C-alpha cells in the first residue's frame, strides 16, 4: 500500500429493517432510529441511521480493502450529516471510498475514509490505521 492508492468504492443499501437489526444488535434503542414521530419532534426530517451503523459499514469496507478486520488497530470518525432512511423497500445507499494517506514510521498505514449518502458526507475526517500485511 503506497500513498495515493485508492480502494474500490463499496456501496451498502440500508433500509429501515437494517436500522432495527442494528438497534437490537448494539443495544442503541434511541427512537430517532425507528420512530418518524420522535425523529421529527427533535427537528430531524425523519428516521436516521445510527452514526455507529455508518461507521460499522465503513469498517467493513476497510476490512475488505486490507484483507481482514484484525489488521485495523485504530479507527476514528466525526459524524457529519444525518443519513435519512425512508420507510420504503429501497431505503438509501451509503457509498464508502478510501485512499492511502501515508505510511507511518512504525509500518502502520493511514487510510482516509469517506462515506456519503445522497452526495452528502455522512462521516467527516474518518481514518483507519492498519497493519500493512
Amino acid at each position, binding site marked *: 500500500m503506497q500513498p495515493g492508492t485508492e480502494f474500490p468504492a463499496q456501496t*451498502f443499501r440500508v433500509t429501515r429493517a*437494517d436500522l432495527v*437489526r*442494528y438497534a*437490537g*444488535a*448494539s*443495544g*442503541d434503542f434511541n427512537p430517532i432510529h425507528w420512530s418518524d414521530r420522535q425523529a421529527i419532534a*427533535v427537528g430531524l426530517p425523519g428516521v436516521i441511521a445510527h*452514526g*455507529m*451503523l455508518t*461507521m*460499522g*459499514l465503513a*469498517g*467493513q469496507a*476497510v*476490512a*475488505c480493502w486490507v484483507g*481482514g*478486520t*484484525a489488521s*485495523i*488497530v*485504530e*479507527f*476514528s*470518525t*466525526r*459524524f457529519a450529516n444525518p443519513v435519512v432512511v425512508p420507510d420504503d423497500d429501497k431505503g438509501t445507499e451509503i457509498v464508502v471510498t478510501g485512499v492511502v494517506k501515508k505510511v507511518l514510521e512504525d509500518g502502520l498505514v493511514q487510510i482516509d475514509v469517506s462515506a456519503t449518502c445522497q452526495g452528502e458526507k455522512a462521516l467527516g475526517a474518518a481514518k483507519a490505521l492498519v497493519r500493512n500485511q
Partner: protein
Amino acid sequence: MGRVYPPTPPYEVGREKIREFADAVFATDPVHRDLAEARAHGYRDVIAPPTFAIILSQIAGQQLVDDPSFGMDYSRVVHGGQTFRYERPIEAGDHLTTVMTVEEISSRAGHAFLTTRHEVATVEGEQVVTVWTRLVIRGEG
C-alpha cells in the same frame, strides 16, 4: 472533568453476540463467525468487528445518564464522533470491564461538548481497547 467512574460489571462476550453484531454491520470476514477460521488466524475464538466496543462504551456511558450530579438529558444528545484504539481484537469468551473517565467538557454556541474515554480490559487485567466517545448536548431553545 477528569472524573473517573468505577469499573463496570464484567461483560461476557458471546459468539452469537459477535455473529449478530457482524450481521448488523454487514461484516463478511469469516473470522467473526467461523471458529476454525479464527483459530487459523491465531485467535482463541471468533473475533468482533472493529466497532463492537461501542457496546461496552454505551454500557459505561449509562452511568452519566444515571448520575444525578451530572444531569445529562439524553434526549438532547447527538453523537459527535468516535475513536477506537485496539491492543488486540475482542474475542468471544472475553470477560470485559470498562473504566470511564470524563476527559473533556466544554461549551460553545450554547451547546455542551463532552468527551469520555473508556478503558476496556479483561477481568485478568489485559488492556484490549480504548474508546473515545464524543457527544454534543444541544442547548435548549
